[in-house]
């Protein structure tokens, strides 16, 4: 990003350390009773340094902190800058939204505590320039987000939290072992070193799976549709908009790119998995009846596209910078739009009223259509950059993926239509609209609509944006999707029964998430009596032996025995001494 204000290096470093530092300090303030009021008021602003850093810092600036943890580096690079921008915007606006949304919640302080620390760690993970720093913040963020998911303390929330935490734990150890394997072959743990290393199968699998859990890739996506709906709206927004991108960022940071990678099957795996996820998410999403669940499935589907993109980069290493560019733009677009949708749902559900339906539906329509790639929206730009990458691929891939892109847009459109219908049917009867919630949403919408237009890559799109072909390519999936859904609604007004595939789909095969038990592993022994009883029995046997010994001792006391011993011993000694 072009920085118009030039900061000297000291200030830049200060800003850099404030990015995760300020939210952490604020979260600590929330723990102290007298400071809670101020803390709550200032909470959203603590993302300001991050925003500033995303906009103002020179890419490539580094802060070396040798004493910290295992020694590490924080800094901003191009990729990080975009992710930081996304994170800062979404976290900040959701926080503003949340302040109003949770106004009457008695436990909002606790919510904001977890919110702020998750935020801090999320920023930290974007800034981290070494392996362990990334891992550190990644893990911390995952665990702090648990507090957001289970905030409502409903049974569903607990169940979702349980699934989430189990997967987080598994992800943690997968990453731990993967990084360990990787680190053992590296001279140091800088990210730049990692990118240059040659791939090693086991550690790649581990890292891939570890990040896939967070990124919601198939089949590790099961926590997403369970966790997103139960969390409070601002939390869902950041979860879906920003936090799952951490998995994506992990891939980008840790997958070694090079000819060796291209020859292995990794690229294909990513691409196939991405495509599968893109359609699978839509398919299952269409069967859901709750707005936030549908959005969660949409996220799965969208993450599929990004997975596919990463796969493209692996297939042809020469394209890696473009892929990075495309992924970060797509992530930015999707994050903003998805956050806007979640906040919109929150606004509608919490505060909506009959009278304002139409314009509020309008608020939701914009990000929806953007996701489907409506021309001149952020989606269009994102998809354009994606297509540029796809076209550059070797032959079979460019064909296939060229076909895939409009189809995925169509699928997205179908799903979002489904979503809009659900929202439309779910308005409660309230009248007032809180500006505290509306304002952040509007800012977010503005960002969705306008931010990408200021992007350096825009000129390419601006050149071709008005092209007939491009226009049509963006438009027909939207229109077709709309048409299909209208037809569908007319024929089956009731929609598909929700019980067909419940939220969490594949999880049901192995585990019933509505299980009433709280313990992770079923029954817990409250006492262990068996072993001890055995010991007592043995002691009883000993007692009998002791009795026998006492009898023998009495016999030894008889004079006759003593005399016998005396003589025997005399004789024996004689024999022994004379060595007979």
């Amino acid at each position: 990003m072009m920085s118009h204000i030039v900061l000297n290096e000291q200030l830049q470093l200060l800003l850099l350390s404030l990015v995760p530092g300020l939210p952490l300090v604020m979260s600590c303030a929330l723990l102290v009773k007298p400071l809670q009021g101020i803390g709550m008021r200032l909470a959203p602003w603590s993302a300001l340094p991050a925003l500033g850093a995303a906009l103002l810092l020179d890419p490539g600036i580094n802060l070396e902190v040798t004493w910290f943890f295992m020694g590490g580096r924080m800094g901003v690079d191009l990729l990080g800058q975009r992710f930081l921008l996304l994170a800062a915007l979404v976290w900040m606006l959701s926080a503003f939204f949340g302040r109003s949304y949770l106004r009457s919640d008695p436990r909002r302080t606790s919510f904001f505590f977890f919110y702020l620390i998750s935020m801090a760690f999320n920023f930290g993970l974007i800034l981290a320039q070494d392996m362990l720093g990334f891992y550190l913040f990644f893990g911390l963020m995952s665990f702090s987000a648990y507090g957001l998911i289970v905030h409502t303390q409903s049974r569903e929330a607990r169940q979702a939290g349980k699934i989430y935490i189990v997967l987080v734990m598994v992800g943690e150890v997968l990453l731990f072992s993967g990084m360990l394997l990787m680190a053992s072959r590296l001279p140091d743990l800088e990210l730049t070193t990692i990118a240059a290393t040659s791939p090693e199968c086991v550690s790649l699998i581990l890292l891939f799976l570890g990040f896939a859990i967070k990124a919601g890739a198939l089949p590790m996506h099961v926590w997403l549709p369970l966790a997103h709906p139960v969390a409070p709206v601002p939390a869902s927004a950041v979860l879906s908009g920003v936090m799952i991108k951490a998995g994506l960022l992990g891939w980008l940071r840790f997958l070694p790119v090079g000819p060796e990678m291209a020859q292995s099957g990794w690229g294909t795996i990513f691409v196939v998995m991405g495509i599968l996820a893109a359609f699978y998410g839509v398919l299952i999403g269409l069967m859901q009846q709750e707005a936030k669940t549908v959005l969660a499935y949409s996220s799965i589907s969208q993450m599929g596209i990004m997975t596919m993109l990463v796969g493209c980069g692996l297939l042809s290493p020469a394209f890696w910078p473009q892929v990075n560019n495309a992924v970060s733009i797509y992530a930015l677009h999707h994050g903003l739009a998805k956050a806007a949708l979640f906040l919109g749902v929150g606004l509608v559900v919490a505060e909506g009223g009959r009278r304002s339906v139409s314009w509020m539906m309008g608020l939701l329509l914009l990000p929806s259509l953007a996701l489907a790639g409506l021309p001149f929206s952020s989606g269009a730009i994102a998809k354009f950059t994606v297509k540029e990458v796809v076209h550059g691929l070797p032959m079979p891939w460019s064909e296939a993926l060229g076909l895939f892109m409009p189809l995925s847009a169509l699928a997205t459109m179908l799903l979002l239509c489904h979503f809009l219908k659900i929202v439309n049917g779910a308005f409660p009867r309230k009248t007032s609209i809180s500006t505290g919630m509306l304002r952040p949403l509007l800012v977010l919408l503005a960002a969705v609509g306008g931010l990408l237009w200021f992007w350096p890559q825009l000129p390419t799109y601006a050149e071709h944006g008005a092209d007939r072909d491009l226009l049509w390519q963006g438009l027909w999936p939207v229109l077709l999707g709309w048409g299909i859904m209208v037809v569908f609604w007319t024929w089956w007004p009731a929609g598909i029964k929700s019980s067909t595939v419940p939220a969490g789909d594949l999880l049901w095969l192995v585990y019933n998430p509505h299980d009433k038990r709280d313990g992770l592993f079923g029954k817990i022994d409250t006492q262990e009596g068996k072993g001890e009883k055995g010991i007592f029995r043995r002691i009883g046997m000993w007692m009998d032996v002791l009795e026998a010994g006492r009898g023998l001792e009495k016999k030894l006391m008889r004079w006759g025995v003593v005399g016998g011993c005396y003589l025997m011993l005399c004789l024996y000694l004689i024999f022994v001494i004379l060595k007979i």
Partner: protein
Amino acid sequence: MIFSPGHVYGLTGLLLFIVGLAGLILCAQLLRKILAVNIMASGVFLFLVTIAHGNGVLIDPVPHAMVLTGIVVSVSSTAVALALAGRVQDMAHCRDLLKKKARGEG
């Protein structure tokens, strides 16, 4: 091998020792045990005196001194033994009386 008087005395001494030993082990009564010990002691003393006789030419005074001392020791230990035996006897008597009394009342 020809038995000299020395041999006879010596063997008698040893025999006495063994007889005493048998008495000590086999007799149940305390008094008999004490007497048995005295017999043993006598046996040993006899043996010592035999040694003093040696080959009959020179009489060694040392074993005599030993026997004299031994007799003193033996006398005193017999005294102690008798005193103790008396006490034990008394107690056994008392115990029997008590037992009988208890039985009679029961």
